[in-house]
């Protein structure tokens, strides 16, 4: 996994960052060594306001380690990590181990690192579709519920930088898409930069501005379509990876409402589902989460879909 060549990486699709724009976090040739082994090495990374950077890669490829370097939890053994002074971070860690002896309600957990009013707590939980969990005990939550609560806590802080380590692990498929939609929405409403880690290449691809594919070092980087065409990406993820973009960026022509009705793209309602869920063959459809409709009808772009055919 060692990278003998220490020349700075200049990926083909590196998002251009203007010099005036304050970069939120920057890693330069950063690496972490544990004993004799490098967990990850030679990572260059910047996250600017309003940008979504996604780290992908197999297990043990150094994704979480890279995020922890960016956050300052781990000090790089080589290279540099810098953050904008006064940077406010919202962090969703990969794991949360709470002892059963600790009485901790969801509401109290939301207030863990900064004070929030009841209304602010409720609003954040509503955004992630977890409002009914407000008074629940943290240790009774399921995996998916925990993710929604952790995400709510991170966004309630109104952070400059949101760091999400596997934000949809354990979340059901419909919820997963809703959460990714929410993440894009947060990016535009808060204008924060987002550093995200995911195994789930299928869904990540469409939302990210920049993808960094790790395998102990940066194996490739660029925009989703650059990465999906890269040889090293295919070598790492196998043949099915090429279809990743297509699976997500299909068009929903109708939405299932909480009351069982179906709303079509033209706004009309009917009581049952026509069965053909999409205007093309990709799988999956969007059930509304927690009663809130996640309407994706504005997303259709015929040109994009044509590209996807090629990518697959």
């Amino acid at each position, binding site marked *: 996994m060692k990278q003998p060549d220490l020349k700075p990486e200049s990926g083909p699709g590196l998002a251009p960052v203007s010099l005036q724009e304050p970069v939120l976090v920057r890693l330069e040739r950063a690496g972490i060594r544990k004993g004799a082994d490098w967990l990850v090495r030679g990572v260059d990374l910047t996250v600017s306001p309003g940008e979504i950077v996604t780290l992908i890669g197999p297990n043990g490829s150094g994704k979480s380690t890279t995020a922890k370097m960016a956050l300052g939890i781990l000090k790089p053994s080589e290279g540099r990590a810098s953050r904008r002074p006064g940077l406010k971070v919202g962090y969703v*860690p990969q794991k949360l181990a709470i*002892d059963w002896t600790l009485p901790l309600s969801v509401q109290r957990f939301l207030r863990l690192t900064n004070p929030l009013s009841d209304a602010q707590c409720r609003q954040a939980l509503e955004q992630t579709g977890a409002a009914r969990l407000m008074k629940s005990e943290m240790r009774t939550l399921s995996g998916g519920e925990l993710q929604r609560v952790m995400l709510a806590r991170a966004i309630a802080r109104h952070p400059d930088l949101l760091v999400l380590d596997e934000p949809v692990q354990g979340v059901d498929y419909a919820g997963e898409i809703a959460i990714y939609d929410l993440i894009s929405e947060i990016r535009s409403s808060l204008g924060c930069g987002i550093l995200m880690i995911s195994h789930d290449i299928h869904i990540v691809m469409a939302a990210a501005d920049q993808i960094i594919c790790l395998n102990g070092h940066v194996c490739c980087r660029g925009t989703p379509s650059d990465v999906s065409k890269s040889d090293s990406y295919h070598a790492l993820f196998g043949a099915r990876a090429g279809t990743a973009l297509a699976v997500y960026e299909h068009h929903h022509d109708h939405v299932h409402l909480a009351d069982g009705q179906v709303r079509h793209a033209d706004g009309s309602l009917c009581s049952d589902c026509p069965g053909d869920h999409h205007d093309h063959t990709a799988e999956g459809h969007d059930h509304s989460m927690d009663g809130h409709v996640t309407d994706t009808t504005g997303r259709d772009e015929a040109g994009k879909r044509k590209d996807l055919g090629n990518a697959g």
Partner: protein
Amino acid sequence: MLDDFFTRALVAAVGVALVAGPLGCFIIWRRMAYFGDTLSHAALLGVALSLLLEVNTTLTVAVVSVIVAVLLLFLRRSDTLSSDALLGLLSHSALALGLVCLAFMTWVRVDLLGLLFGDILAVTRIDIAMIYGGGGLVLCVLALIWRRLFAATVSPDLAAGEGLQPDRTDLVFMVLTAVVIAISLKIIGALLITALLIIPAAAARRLSSTPEQMAVVAGLTGAASAVGGLYASLHYDTPSGPSIVVAAMVLFAVSLVPGGLIVRRMVSKTRGDRP
């Protein structure tokens, strides 16, 4: 009022328990019971040193415990040994080393049983001043770092990522624990200090719905066990430390039985309006 040895012991034990309760909550939340054991066993080494150098026992014990705590923090960070094995190693080495040192000092007569299990006859006015002065300070500092310490307890990574510097808070917390161990040594004895930290906190768990509430209930449960234990100790002529611990254990058992439900309801009724 403090002329009577028993009153002195009572006042001292209640003071110790009130401080040990809230601190003990953090010990169990952070799964650090064995860590507390290690520090309290190291206290015996502190006693031996204080006798050798003829300096104040409580201060020496506090200093030795702090040194061991910092040592542990460093060893744990270097990841060379699993922290379980490390704690076991240090805990028993410190205990054995303390006992060997005491045995070597033939010129001092030490009440070993008193050191290991507590001795209510030995409590002086100075001890009481130390307990209330030191204990009050511990509670003040704990209140100051509460939010940070609590965040670091729930998730160290999260606290570090959001800029709360959990390493510093951890260090302060260890010093506080060392101080509590030093001031409770005479009452409870080196072998059982951890019990006074852990058992009242565990008993409080069933009766509390917020962390703050649990800290308060743990302090009160500890104080109740101290009073009950000391009276039993006087009545049955048993060593004070084990008696207090048995009393705490009884309270823990009570918190488990369905009758505990009534107490829980009472507690939540009196505190129900607080978030």
